[in-house]
């Protein structure tokens, strides 16, 4: 069986949903030629009416998608760089997200915002390396960060079928992950998964960091039994699944590639300590407050959460108490 790449899993999800549902269409910059490698072959298969190359007009085409959704379509927008979400934050948060409530339930806004290549792409410097998923979780827009090819497929399918706006962050660090995928099935939004069972500490890892957490868990296998929890969806969050894990392990570390202040790691820790007594203080590994990724590779890496930091945080938590 060919091993499927994460990127190709996204392509397959788009193709399957476009085949299944005529109301699904794609729009974005350079998607006819599949500049990001996600929409490869889709123009030929579905035509220019369903694979729309847009001018560089992020605000307008994001609201265009809102309008199309109000009229019964299911648009999927592909953003070529994550910081474009800063440009269209207003259009997503203030319009797409608010319309159902403001109209008293007269409408739904089923738009999917797909961001392949989110986070550091190494050497793309300050304005192309953001990973702003915590912002969307904060405002209550459904926020998905798949870590594996099967989840990339299944979560994108569920995002497209969801009646609400959904942002799908596909981290640059996960795009080339390959795996055998035997079951192409939707993955429910809001449900996390234990990637690796353990008994001493629960590590919550977001997106591509799941793979780092698994590697660290392997390295520490002789000393500490690490359970790795992949939330998959950051909003809504699978609190029940996580609390079940932490109730068993009694310790918590979160590794998250967003900024520290008001990042999802802080929310995860706050919610857990509200609900479960811990055997030791929890720890988090994140980007620094206010992080801007510097260009030089060594500096870029220095700002991202690393395996060494994660290892240290696990050891610290397990030493305390």
């Amino acid at each position, binding site marked *: 069986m060919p091993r499927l790449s994460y990127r190709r899993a996204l392509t397959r999800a788009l193709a399957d949903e476009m085949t299944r549902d005529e*109301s699904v*269409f794609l729009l974005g910059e350079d998607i006819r030629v599949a500049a990001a490698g996600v929409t490869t072959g889709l123009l030929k298969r579905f035509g220019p*009416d369903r694979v729309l190359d*847009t*001018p560089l*007009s992020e*605000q*307008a*085409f*994001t*609201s*265009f*998608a*809102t*309008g*199309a*959704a*109000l*009229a*019964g*379509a299911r*648009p999927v927008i592909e953003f070529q760089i994550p910081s474009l979400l800063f440009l269209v934050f*207003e*259009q997503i948060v*203030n*319009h797409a997200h608010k*319309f*159902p*409530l*403001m*109209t*008293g*339930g*007269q*409408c*739904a*806004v*089923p738009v999917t915002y797909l961001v392949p290549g989110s986070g550091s792409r190494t050497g793309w410097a300050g304005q192309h390396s953001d990973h702003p998923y915590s912002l969307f979780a904060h405002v*209550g827009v*459904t926020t998905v960060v798949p870590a594996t090819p099967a989840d990339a497929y299944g979560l994108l399918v569920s995002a497209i079928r*969801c*009646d*609400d706006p959904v942002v799908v962050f596909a981290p640059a660090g996960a795009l080339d992950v390959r795996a055998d995928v035997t079951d192409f099935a939707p993955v429910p939004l*809001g449900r996390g998964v234990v990637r690796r069972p353990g008994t001493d500490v629960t590590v919550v890892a977001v997106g591509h960091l799941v793979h780092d957490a698994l590697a660290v868990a392997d390295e520490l296998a002789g000393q500490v039994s690490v359970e790795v929890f992949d939330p998959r969806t950051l909003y*809504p969050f699978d609190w029940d699944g996580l609390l079940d894990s932490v109730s068993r392990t009694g310790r918590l570390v979160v590794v998250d590639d967003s900024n520290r202040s008001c990042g999802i790691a802080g929310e995860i820790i706050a919610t857990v300590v509200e609900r479960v007594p811990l055997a030791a203080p929890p720890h988090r590994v994140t980007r620094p407050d206010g992080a801007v990724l510097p260009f030089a590779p060594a500096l870029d890496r220095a700002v991202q959460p690393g395996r060494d930091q994660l290892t240290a945080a696990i050891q610290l938590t397990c030493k305390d108490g």
Partner: protein
Amino acid sequence: MTGPDPVGLYRTVRLIRRFEERAIELVDAGEIVGGIHPYLGQEGVAAGVCAALRVADLVTGTHRGHGHVLAKGADPARMLAELCGRVTGLNRGRGGSMHAADFGVGVLGANAIVGAAGAILTGAVWARRRRGDDVVGATFFGDGAVNEGMLLEAFNLAALWRVPVLFVCENNGYATTMPVEGAVAGTIAGRAAAFGMPAATVDGQDPEKVREVSAAAVARMCAGGGPELVEARTYRFDAHHTFEHRVRLDYRPPEEVAAARRRDPVLIQGDRLPAAVRAAIDAEVEATLAAAVDFALAGPAPDPATALDHLYASGLTARTGGG
């Protein structure tokens, strides 16, 4: 599309006028919390444009939106109930004055972010036509919005993809307190020329002229001509927002307001009708609004326990903030 209909146009401008006057009374009485952006003086624009549309055609508008919603055919009683924050309102009390929507008559929601509604309407009309529906749309915005990038991007998309959207600029001379001369470089119609869109400037105080220009534009759009812009020169007789009734901002010469009030769309259209016809419509509108006020005030306030109902169309429920 309807033909010229002097009686219908008068009924619409009169309805909007009296709706606004009654709404201001309810603001003063404390029944409408948060105030309103009065449309007084601009009635001819909404009436004229919407007379050129069918019920199935789509409309988006602005925070100064009561006229658009009423002209498109929404029930004045449910509209007023919405302003009063009642569950019987168009939006079940969740939208209020600035977000009134009635999808049943093609009103996809008034928008309180200046310049935001144009791209939304463009996408909605595009999607409906792709599905095979023969609809067009009209989106209303003020003179301030022509300086917003989002709207100019929408001009480009609509023109590029030949989406039949009538961009209606209600140039009332002021963006809140900023006079148009101090804000717009070039001209408003010139904005359209840059995108290859036909544009017309029309006397917004004359409902029949607005209807005529809009109907011609709609006919060309239906024939595949792509979007058009109409700049309706108008004037708001009252404040930007009713908060001005208290704070008395000084930005318009009183003689300018007085002169503008002499070109009243209700009088201009009313003068075209026999006095008896006009009196009958006036009485009909009074009765409609009396019933609307009764309906609005009789509606129950929403249950606080339902404050987050409709937040998610998918049925997702949010965590609460307390405890």
